[in-house]
């Protein structure tokens, strides 16, 4: 008898499941909400503590800073009335009045100054603290307040920098410079779960951030700025893999997709037709051969770096490995940035030239004969194996030396070896711009002692040119100095430029007016639901 009961129970369970299935087949049908792919923020949603794209996408939607970047990367005043300086050191910032956080609090000069002070203070351990190191009073050793910030009136404050910065206004669109309401300072912890902003969107409700699942944003009806949403809100879905997101896009379950999985790179243009998007993004990829490696210092090192760079056929690699979804590098920055130039003197070292490469390598061998093998380290969890293997293979074939990739299992392990300078090989490097300026691709990486100078590169002439650029009266003038600095970089190749990133993506049949910005992020507030 007992078996009969078990059988009956199974049938009952199966029936329940079937009922639940039909019951839940509906759902969805949100009015005017755009769904897009994102990733679970790695940190609490605090402007000064978010340095990765998952959280950045959300913060840029729910905050309005002094300026925002348009599709081309040009700064446009958002909350700023004016940002002026006569000497590039003392800046006077006037903000528009009448703006409010979504909890009703007025956004004043204090909202900015207090947020920046909090972000800079070492005791607060904010990941973006380095962003304030240009402001007077910042210290990497002691937890000291920024003395350069002064509130003049509720709508005006002044900033005194430690050194001239011609591109200071350009930096101010980065999420680290957003204002914060008083509610944040009362309880930073719970604020990070339910942030309150002043931007085009706001959290749909308390707990709208469903961890590892999605975050629901709705239009902020009181946002008076220029980024007025043309839709009712955003549902940013956190996908574990791009494959899953792509499957949803194909089934019209996802409206806007940034990024195409490797498995679909060959077919996505056919799959999506005119709903496929491909355009440049401010991402620069390279590999770095530090001077401290044997055979890579002084003149010998410069010759060898140039030889290695010339033994790589970038366009061929991009076609073979990435299906053409990268652009061969022509400099150390990115073509989406104003001031970019494809023909800086010396940039021919980025063109494949086997004969010249062999010749340079032979010259270096006269200084000191080559020994050992050449390796490029990478993190195996980031999809880098394909191109590293191909690059080292080309080097091997052109120069006739032993070359291979050196994988580290995780990003954490890889970056630890790189930042504590124990790594004994060349290693992959990459840079995604924080703000659209040439300087942002150069100073943080090649200035003596700079934060991301993983190759410990140091050249007094380059430093001097950076300084000149920062003191220049206009951005155009500044860019000339940055281009001159690149001429030196091409001779010494502190990083070997490989390619620029391209954003590929797509959108569903339910939306229109989809465009991607300079940084490869879709401009979500302009998307319209059909």
């Amino acid at each position: 008898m007992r078996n009969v009961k078990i059988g009956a129970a199974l049938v009952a369970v199966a029936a329940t499941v079937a009922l639940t299935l039909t019951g839940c087949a509906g759902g969805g049908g949100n009015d005017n909400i755009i769904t897009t792919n994102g990733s679970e923020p790695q940190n609490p949603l605090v402007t000064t503590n978010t340095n990765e794209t998952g959280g950045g996408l959300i913060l840029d939607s729910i905050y309005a800073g002094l300026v925002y970047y348009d599709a081309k990367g040009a700064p446009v005043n958002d909350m700023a009335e004016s940002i002026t300086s006569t000497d590039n050191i003392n800046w006077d910032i006037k903000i528009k009045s009448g703006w409010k956080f979504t909890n009703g609090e007025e956004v004043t000069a204090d909202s900015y100054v207090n947020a920046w002070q909090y972000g800079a203070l070492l005791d607060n351990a904010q990941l973006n603290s380095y962003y304030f190191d240009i402001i007077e009073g910042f210290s990497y050793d002691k937890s000291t307040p920024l003395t350069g910030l002064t509130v003049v009136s509720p709508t005006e404050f002044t900033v005194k920098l430690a050194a001239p910065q011609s591109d200071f206004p350009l930096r101010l669109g980065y999420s680290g410079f957003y204002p914060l309401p008083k509610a944040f300072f009362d309880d930073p912890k719970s604020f990070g779960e339910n942030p309150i902003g002043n931007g085009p969107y706001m959290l749909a409700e308390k707990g709208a951030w469903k961890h590892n699942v999605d975050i629901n944003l709705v239009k902020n009806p009181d946002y008076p700025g220029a980024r007025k949403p043309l839709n009712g809100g955003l549902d940013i879905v956190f996908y574990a893999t791009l494959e899953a997101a792509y499957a949803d896009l194909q089934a019209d379950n996802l409206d806007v997709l940034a990024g195409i999985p490797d498995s679909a790179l060959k077919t996505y243009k056919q799959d999506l037709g005119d709903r496929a998007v491909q355009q440049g993004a401010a991402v620069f990829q390279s590999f770095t051969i530090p001077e401290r490696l044997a055979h890579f210092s002084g003149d010998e090192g410069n010759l060898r770096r140039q030889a290695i760079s010339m033994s790589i056929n970038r366009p061929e690699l991009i076609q073979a490995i990435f299906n053409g979804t990268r652009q061969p590098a022509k400099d150390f920055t990115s073509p989406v940035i104003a001031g970019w130039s494809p023909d800086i003197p010396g940039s021919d070292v980025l063109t494949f030239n086997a004969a010249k490469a062999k010749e340079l390598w032979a010259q270096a061998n006269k200084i000191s004969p080559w020994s050992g093998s050449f390796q490029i380290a990478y993190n195996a969890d980031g999809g880098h194996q394909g191109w590293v293997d191909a690059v080292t293979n080309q080097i091997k074939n052109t120069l006739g030396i032993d070359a291979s990739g050196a994988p580290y299992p995780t990003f954490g392990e890889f970056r630890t070896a790189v930042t504590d300078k124990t790594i004994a090989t060349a290693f992959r490097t990459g840079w995604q711009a924080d703000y659209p300026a040439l300087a942002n691709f150069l100073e943080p990486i090649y200035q003596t002692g700079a934060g991301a100078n993983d190759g410990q590169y140091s050249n007094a002439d380059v430093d001097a040119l950076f300084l000149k650029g920062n003191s220049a009266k206009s951005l155009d003038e500044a860019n000339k100095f940055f281009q001159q600095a690149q001429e030196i970089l091409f001779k010494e190749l502190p990083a070997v430029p490989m390619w620029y990133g391209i954003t590929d993506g797509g959108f569903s049949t339910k939306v229109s007016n989809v465009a991607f910005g300079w940084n490869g992020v879709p401009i979500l507030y302009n998307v319209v639901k059909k």
Partner: protein
Amino acid sequence: MFGYILRRVLQAIPVFLGTTLLIYFMVFAMPGDPIVALFGDKGVNPAVADQLRHQYHLDQPFIVQYLIYIGGLFVGDFGTSFSGQPVANILAQTFPVTIRLAMLSLLFEMIVGIGIGLVSGLRKGKWFDNSALVMSLIFISLPIFVIAFVFQFFFAIKLGWARPTVSGAANWGELILPAIVLATVSIAYIIRLTRASVIDTADQDFVRTAYSKGLSRGRVVRVHILRNSLIPVVTFLAVDFGVLLVGATVTEGIFNVPGVGRTLYQAIIRGEGPTVVSFVTVMVLIYLVVNLLTDLLYAALDPRIRYGK
């Protein structure tokens, strides 16, 4: 019976302490600094990094870190993730989803696997048996991600019978497709296991006796053959439940199921000690409970098995 259960529960305590210590040590010994990884490709501010290390107790020696963690457990504090979320919340969000997925999957395995296996065993050598064997061979040899992608493409994208991915709610209906994918490989094993066991049992003396007593074929199959054939299958299912809980990473990724596998994988990559250890600990506990239930089920299936006083 009660004494037996109590003894098993007490045995779980050293297992629990041992696994937490071991896993915590493995996460601790993992090379690479998780704090450095938090800064991405950007420059590391050493003072900020030190602050963060202090905040997550990463500047303490291993045994102190472990004791802080275990101490927290006793007051219900599982630690916090780098995104500032209490690990207890993450556990509460992900485990129900994965358990739903695993149970659904197990249900398919039982119904389809045992059903086909029983028919196969009773009709040994006939066309049904042969085609079932060939089918099961195909499913055993296919990697699960191939099955997952094919099912997703065909049933969700082409036919539109289901959503290609699971929504945040991850309700029963949405989990059916991933559950079927997860079940496929095990179904193949269960078919073979059940078939072999049924063939074995059908030759036993007590089956012949039952027939000669004049019992109907249906009753003999249900009560005498099937019930006595289920012990190896139940063992397999119990082990499989554990595998489904931890091994669903690939399938959860493809169908974007917000479950245990995916969260655990990310926590390992990020070196989040408390998250990894808490997840593994809960898995170990579930595994122990399932094992105990299985052992008790043996007694229910086979009257010859009794658990002593």
